[in-house]
């Protein structure tokens, strides 16, 4: 009676002290190379800074008193916002480069769940999360189709944020580079207030994404012992040798 005879599905796991320690043959698989990991954590910090400062710029929730000359609160908040934006854009450039230089889990093709198999598995993944068929989740080494779709969506949203952000930023200097590069967007979207509105609403989409993302990553580790969180720190994770992975 060994683990190798078990059917290829995730074993039931128990929470906390009652959890069975993982058994069976495992192998370590390298998924996320250094640029991706550095990009992930740098972008995470940048996004937190951007969302916080962005919400302050959108609605300044505390103020200063006294003479204007002795304070520079909004000035510093905007400076932080623009600096963090520059950092985020840099991570974006690294990510785009790694779409072509990375391994098969990081390449452009890994961003899009386009095969029919992916869509069937996405339905299974949703059923798994909704606890309709909890034992039936498809096993992927890299991202499952639902992850592919949501992370690609976040990349697209980041691009929207960057472009709308630069369109607003450029307006302070109509002779500057950013005005020339991004001003086309303003008449296209119907005015700078619409650009501002899209930038503002997108912030909230990030703020909705973050708790779900963190929860599901932690849940994967707790429920499936998938090593997800480890993989974005060390680059790899231990996977069961006896399970057939969809993207092997």
């Amino acid at each position, binding site marked *: 009676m060994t683990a190798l005879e078990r059917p290829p599905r995730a074993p039931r796991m128990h*929470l906390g002290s009652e959890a069975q320690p993982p058994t069976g043959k495992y192998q370590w698989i390298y998924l996320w190379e250094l640029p991706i990991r550095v990009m992930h954590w740098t972008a995470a910090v940048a996004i937190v800074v951007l969302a916080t400062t962005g919400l302050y710029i959108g609605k*300044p929730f505390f103020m*200063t008193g006294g003479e204007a000359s002795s304070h520079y609160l909004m000035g510093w908040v905007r400076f932080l916002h623009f600096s963090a934006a520059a950092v985020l854009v840099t991570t974006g450039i690294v990510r785009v480069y790694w779409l072509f230089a990375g391994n098969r889990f990081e390449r452009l093709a890994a961003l899009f769940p386009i095969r029919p198999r992916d869509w069937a598995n996405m339905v299974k993944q949703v059923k798994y999360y909704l606890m309709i068929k909890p034992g039936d989740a498809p096993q992927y080494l890299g991202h499952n189709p639902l992850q592919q779709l949501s992370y690609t969506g976040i990349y697209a949203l980041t691009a929207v944020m960057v472009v709308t952000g630069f369109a607003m930023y450029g307006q*302070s200097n109509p002779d500057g580079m950013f005005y020339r590069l991004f001003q086309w967007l303003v008449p296209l979207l119907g*005015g700078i207030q619409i650009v501002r*509105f899209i930038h503002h609403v997108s912030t909230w989409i990030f703020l909705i994404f973050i708790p779900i993302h963190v929860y599901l990553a932690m*849940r994967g580790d707790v429920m499936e012992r998938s090593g997800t969180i480890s993989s974005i720190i060390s680059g790899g994770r231990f996977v069961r040798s006896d399970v057939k992975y969809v993207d092997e």
Partner: protein
Amino acid sequence: MYFPSSRPWADGETLSEHLERRGVSRRDFLKFCGEMTAVLGLSSAMTPKVAAALAAMKRPSVIWLQLQECTGCVESVLRTGNPSIGDLVLDVISLDYQHTIMAAAGHQAENALQQAMKDNKGEYLLLVTGSIPLNDDGIYLTIGGRTAKEILVDAAKGAKAVIAVGACAHWGSVQAARPNPTGAVGVSEVVTDKPVVNIAGCPPISDVVTATIVHYLTFGNIPELDYDGRPRFAYSSRIHDQCPRRANFDAGQFVEEFDDEAARKGYCLYQVGCKGPATFSPCPIFLWNSGTSWPIGAGHPCIGCTERHFWDTMSPFYKRMPDVAGFGIESKVDLIGAALAAGAVAGVAAHATATGVHQIRERRRERELPIVNQPPSGKKE
């Protein structure tokens, strides 16, 4: 102060001769030329050139069409409390056809328009205030039995340059706000075969109109325009970046309600909906009413009237963000966003709880069933 005279600028008379006849000193004239050079963003070394060109100028023919509009632009441009030489130039050159201020009426006025267009074909300046309604064959505005579109196309044909004055002529203004029942459009959407200068604003500052005309008369061409056809000398900088309350913005000092302490101290109007950060206009520099004041100077937020579609995109005027169409007037982006983000956190917590409940249930069921294929606890392979 120079008041309009009953003695018009005669044909063949130069501007310097005319101004002398009107009692304007050479000194005042040069001051005016210096101001205009500065407004146009030219080097002060250009002042003599501007002065020479204007002094030698013969009376130019200007036709001023008023289409679908409220006449506020004409009032703003022509009826200042203290007419300057600039106003006088506008006054004296706009004699050929301007149906608000001209003495003629009815067929006489129409004949004056036709005559001016025929006599100065290819030479006259065309100033337009007001939008052009296109829906239902343009029946929403007719003058002398002709629609606004017919009148404009006809007049633009022989014009040397077309200057659209005010938000209506720029893009349609209030009558073009959603749902735009008359199909009102700006001049540049009807006159497409020659460049149209848009003097944006509802109403625009008269100095910008005067300076554009001075540029045209001095150099024989229209000034450099931005992406929306507005002269860059006036519309190349945001109100926000020229605002005297900018220091309060940078310091984080904001008016939250119109009668609060911060409002009395003259803090930044950002939180009560000021659209200065979205608006390109020279208001803080040129000021209004003969340099007396301007909206933000009087404690009122900018409504962004020099920007296209400002009635739709800059409103609500006293809020930072546009309303979400179809969500009702009570909805606010931040409220929806915060509710959804809180919903995501609550959903995640509920999901974690459900997972735990599910686990407990599974465990109970497992206890009743024989354990198959389960390696003994703690045993390592």
